[in-house]
């Protein structure tokens, strides 16, 4: 897996500041997503990770700075499960079909669309759940449903907000492998996480964020006590295990 990115830039943020109303959440962001990249945006909660994804998605406009994107870039977004309105009356099928909104105007699905939805659900291992209500799924299944919706669009860039928070260990493992496969097939992937050992350490490329970009590089380069302190504001110890950095809380140093 080579995800450090030397390909063409899909979205480029130049001196971007962003926030809500008059408050700034992100300052002076310079950052590009490249077409062969697999990037993790790492930071504590409230650091502005979701805000950064919204900038990449294009649903949030920067307060200052410029964002350029490749023409006709197809972007898909997998929301953080906690932010979804689970009480909304839709079935898994209806939800996944949403990504075909722009292509057709008739309300009902064509046989071709039905087959497409069925096959993407099948690929993600939730083929038998198409007619369940979205609330009747487990956390891992809900995650796969939004992945299915995202993949049906055949995006060049896939954004995922905390894809492994609130899902069990084996789902996390499955999701990571699936994303690695998609990346192999040429999809550019950006996800956010605050999980150092379970997630960040296994990604090819990391951007550490805490209202500004603290550091970026491979896990070996950025998972260091200095960068982690700058990102999370706490002193942590970093060990090495089979070539992967492992972070442990250094409570003695903190005390």
């Amino acid at each position, binding site marked *: 897996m080579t995800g450090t990115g030397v390909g063409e830039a899909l979205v480029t943020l130049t001196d971007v500041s962003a926030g809500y109303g008059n408050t700034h959440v992100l300052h002076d962001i310079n950052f590009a997503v490249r077409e062969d990249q697999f990037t993790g945006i790492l930071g504590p909660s409230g650091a502005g990770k979701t805000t950064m994804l919204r900038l990449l*998605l294009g649903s949030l406009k920067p307060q200052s700075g410029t964002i350029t994107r490749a023409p006709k870039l197809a972007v898909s*977004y997998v929301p953080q499960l906690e932010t979804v309105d689970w009480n909304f009356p839709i079935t898994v099928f*209806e939800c996944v*079909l949403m990504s075909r909104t*722009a292509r057709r105007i008739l309300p009902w699905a064509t046989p071709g669309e039905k087959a497409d939805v069925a096959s993407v659900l099948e690929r993600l291992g939730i083929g038998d759940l198409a007619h369940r209500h979205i609330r009747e799924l487990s956390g891992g299944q809900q995650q796969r449903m939004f992945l299915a919706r995202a993949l049906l669009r055949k995006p060049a860039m896939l954004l995922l907000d905390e894809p492994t928070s609130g899902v069990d260990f084996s789902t996390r493992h499955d999701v990571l492998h699936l994303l690695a496969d998609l990346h192999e097939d040429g999809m550019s992937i950006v996800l956010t996480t605050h999980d150092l050992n379970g997630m960040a350490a296994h990604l090819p490329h990391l951007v550490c964020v805490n209202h500004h970009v603290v550091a970026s590089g491979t896990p070996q380069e950025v998972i260091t006590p200095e960068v982690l302190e700058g990102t999370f504001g706490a002193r942590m110890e970093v060990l090495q295990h089979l070539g992967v950095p492992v972070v442990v809380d250094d409570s003695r140093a903190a005390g």
Partner: protein
Amino acid sequence: MTSILEPLQFAFFQKGLLVAALSGALLGFIGVYIVLRGMSYIGHGLSHAIFGGFAAMQLFAAELYVVGAGFWGVLSAISITAVARRSRVGADAAIGVITTASFALGVALFAKFGTSGPSFENALFGSILGISAAQIWGLVGVSLLTVAVVFLRYRVLLFTTFDPDVAQASGVRVARVEALLMIILSLAILATLTVIGVTLVAAMLVIPAVIARMLTNSFGRMLALSTGIGALCGLVGMYLSYYASVPSGTMIVLVGAAVFLVVLSITGARGLRRTAGLDSHRESVGTAR
């Protein structure tokens, strides 16, 4: 048996039934979007805002009042959404001030220039009387327009209702869809105002949709059920209002409430749980909205 069929021999009653059923269906249909978007306070505000225009036009330009009130309604719809979008804090308060002022203006105009008491009460609570052919055609026209818009914009409306941020990023023009919905909503309120009444239109936007939500987990089925329930409430409510001699809107809403209780007793806690969080003002995210 004859007594049940008795009112049916009157042409005005046949018209009343038709208009009530169609009004209930139309409000039930649109209500699904309004309730799921947490917008019923806008429905409430709009019906009151339109009343100002309704009163002014009815009293001063009888022929043109539908056009005038429609214009007023669409204008208030657009200004309400503009206010709601621009400032998160205080939007509700601003809407409250604008719409109640418009309502008060309508009341004042009726009091000052209105010919008789009943027409005022009819406007507030709905009446079978005074349903003109023009109004029936107006209602039919608005209903057809609504069905056409929802048919052609079904997917876009669903996507923007569920997930406006992602819809925007997927190339859907969310603001435009919202404006379209507001125009449809104000036309529907206007078309149903006389038979349901200003103060009760908002209730008929909410009740059928909530009942439908209790009965199904599918969006498509909720739309169909809510329309059917709205029509049923309109029909039965109008019938009962004839016997009870009460304003039609009140009876239609009471029938809706009765249906709600019946459905609640059948679905129990499960149905009620499905309505949790329904029509809560959802925080809009991002600035695209």
